[in-house]
């Protein structure tokens, strides 16, 4: 297969970027999108050019490190799939493919397709945990968790922190990401003590980081590789409102 690529090139955060055009040939249908980019990079290196920088690590759809806009869609055309798990058989021979970084105020471009997502970590740091220091835990089976509750927690906990939801959102909101963590911890019995503080602290941090607000557009869930549902956002809104009414949101580290 042969493709024409229009790829965003940007040397660093300060210098403005632009699109460059490339061609890759001899791509196998079983190759992944990132392997196709590897091929392009080998070609660029051989011709004395500079390879395209892109983030990736596990290449199994679980680490959340890869993240690019492919033809305007976060992680590309296949639903519930990260860019690293997207295979070229989903494209047509001769396709023109546009590749861009995540674009959001809270995600500055470091180089080419690589962005800084530390803001997501800071949302977790604000309260996305259960305060249980090592050694203080009771026997694991002393806290029964009904299976449906455990399953809901796991559905939310599947979030890989890739930031596609932010990139897809016209407001660059990180509500789906934040809701996934709050959803995971707030449904569990272990998470009750800090429940309302958690919701308030994380949402406040999200706003402070420059992510936009949620206006229920739903683009986030449409691109989420782990299919985190919008119902978690509804849940977060409830938790946040109740927390605010209770005056929750004090630091408890």
């Amino acid at each position, binding site marked *: 297969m042969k493709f024409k690529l229009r790829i965003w090139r940007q040397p*660093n955060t300060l210098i403005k970027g632009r699109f460059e055009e490339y061609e890759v040939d001899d791509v196998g249908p079983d190759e992944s999108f990132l392997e196709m980019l590897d091929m392009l990079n080998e070609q660029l290196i051989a011709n004395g050019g500079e390879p395209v920088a892109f983030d990736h690590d596990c*290449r199994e759809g679980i680490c959340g490190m890869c993240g690019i806009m492919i033809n305007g869609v976060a992680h590309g055309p296949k639903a519930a799939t990260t860019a690293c798990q997207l295979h070229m058989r989903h494209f047509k021979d001769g396709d023109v493919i546009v590749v861009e970084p995540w674009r959001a105020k809270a995600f500055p471009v470091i180089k080419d397709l690589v962005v800084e997502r530390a803001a997501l970590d800071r949302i977790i740091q604000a309260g996305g945990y259960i305060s249980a220091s090592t050694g203080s835990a009771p026997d694991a089976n002393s806290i029964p968790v009904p299976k449906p509750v455990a399953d809901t927690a796991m559905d939310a906990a599947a979030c890989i922190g890739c930031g596609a939801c932010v990139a897809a959102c016209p407001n660059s909101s990180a509500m789906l990401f934040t809701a996934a963590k709050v959803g995971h911890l707030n449904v569990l019995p*272990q998470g009750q003590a800090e429940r309302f503080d958690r919701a308030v602290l994380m949402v406040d941090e999200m706003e402070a980081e420059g992510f936009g607000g949620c206006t229920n557009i739903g683009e986030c869930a449409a691109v989420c590789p782990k299919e985190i549902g919008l119902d978690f956002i509804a849940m977060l809104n409830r938790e946040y409102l109740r927390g605010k009414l209770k005056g929750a949101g004090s630091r408890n580290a």
Partner: protein
Amino acid sequence: MADTADTQTSKAPEPAKTILDAKTPDGPIAEKWDKARFDMKLMSPANRRKFRIIVVGSGLAGGSAAATLGELGYNVDCFAYQDSPRRAHSVSAQGGINAAKNYRNDGDSIFRLFYDTVKGGDYRSREANVYRLAQVSNNIIDQCVAQGVPFAREYGGLLDNRSFGGAQVSRTFYARGQTGQQLLLGAYQALARQIHAGRVRMHTRTEMLDLVVVNGVARGIVTRDLRNGKIERWLGDAVVLATGGYSNAFYLSTNAKGCNVTAVWRAHRRGAYFANPCYTQIHPTCIPQSGEHQSKLTLMSESLRNDGRIWAPRQPGDTRAPGDIPEKERWYYLEERYPSFGNLVPRDIASRAAKSVVDAGHGVGPRRNGVYLDFADAIERLGVNVIRDRYGNLFDMYENITGENPYEVPMRIYPALHYTMGGLWVDYNLMSTIPGMFAIGEANFSDHGANRLGASALMQGLADGYFVLPYTLSNYLAQAKLEPLTTDHEAFRAVEEEVNGRVERLLKANGERSVDSYHRELGQILWEYCGMERSEEGLKKALELIPTLREEYWQNVRVPGESEELNQSLEKAGRVADFMELAELMCIDALQRKESCGAHFRSEYQTADGEARRDDENYAYVAAWEYAGDGRAPILNKEPLTFEYVALSQRSYK
């Protein structure tokens, strides 16, 4: 050369240079850890604030250690090369984590977990360490549940368990097919809490490029900020390496692309002994390579072997579609050879069998490089819904990658490099041969002997990080006489200069070939000669090929770009340079070990029916290699292994 590259068939190996002392406490095995803890010097909370600890790595081992040390009140600097600690390679573990809870009442116990792990490791691990691992395994599950790790539950709300990797008890805890991710998020959240509290400073996208040793004691590291290339010095009162394994020396492996040996290898060159580098594990159920540009191999969880049947066409070169091959022309080679364990034989046996079948021309798929893992019988017996319930996400993943539907056609699988049992030598306290430098998780060699059992790496990483290192490190700091230093010290300056020199040399080579092309070539050499089956002849060949390749690499590699920017070619170039050195040590170690044990299979040392033949009389030791300078043969040091609680026996899975 010392007693290393000697290849004569003398019976007893030459005496080792040093006999290493593991500092294992005295007393009955069940009491050793309690005794060790009681004998430790305690440190008051006020004093802990005066110490700064460097933790390199934020996976299960590093993340849990950094968080726990922060909770105790130490100042911690934690480093990772990814953009977030939550992305460490531990995140990809699928299957589960073992613990001796015996919640199933099926006869499990701490002693049984200990016994299984020593036996599974083919009697090449240290009994006292393994026993401690089994002891703290239960605390890990408690801790993770308290953090909110959403383990699978039964309808009554209690924890579910499954049997894994052929274990005869159900002791594996799991969270769907994402156990590693969920355990890592637990550790990451604990870490996030400490970062927020100001106890841990997290340095992401920062790669350790060297260790700083001052007057024989580890006191810091030198790093490169991957965003802008800035080289920096970090001072600490102790250094903990939790940087994972080195499977990526083989280029194609199930590890994440960035996994590397650099931190460990640099520490080795500064005096830390490297133990058992030839113990590398190959996982039998991975998706076979599909093309030349393949960048990694994907693991299909071992649990699939519980219901899938492995077969290949009896007739070599049979190219018919699997459905067209009648039952009597199908060769269920594992079931035939191992009637009692069948498809559930340990990883090393299943892997070697697949290789020999493919090598003999029975391979399937477009590249004839796999065997079938067939669920047709299981679907008929249990119904498609049960199979979907059990393995749905794995089947989807397989279909996504290969474009084939495993509900309808059998999966194709082949072994791939997966895990490395070898690593930095550490004593009972997890301290390396450099005082003040500790190694935890997959980066050390400590608990799995010559072969790791399924679901026990996650257990070891968290045991080290949550429950062992925080004690032993405190004990070290309570007694260490550390000289006051700053990063202006001559030793820091010298190391930084060396680091800069290497970066510059790589950029200046400006040759003809990309880093990846060299990495692939190195991987092929290792896979061919130091992979599933090794021989004296092959290893000697590899020992000629590797130094030549390495030399060419430094002359002819092309690393585009500058050092003062994000430069992924440069990152890879440094890692591959270190893999090239490690690869040689792996082969030297494999050559030296004239026996077959666990994952290390030497073709010369097998039983009449092709099984691994150990030589306990001569090789029941840990081979701990000492770096002796460039161009000089490494020196072999030995830690003799004694087995007081688990009687040495030949594994049999017939």
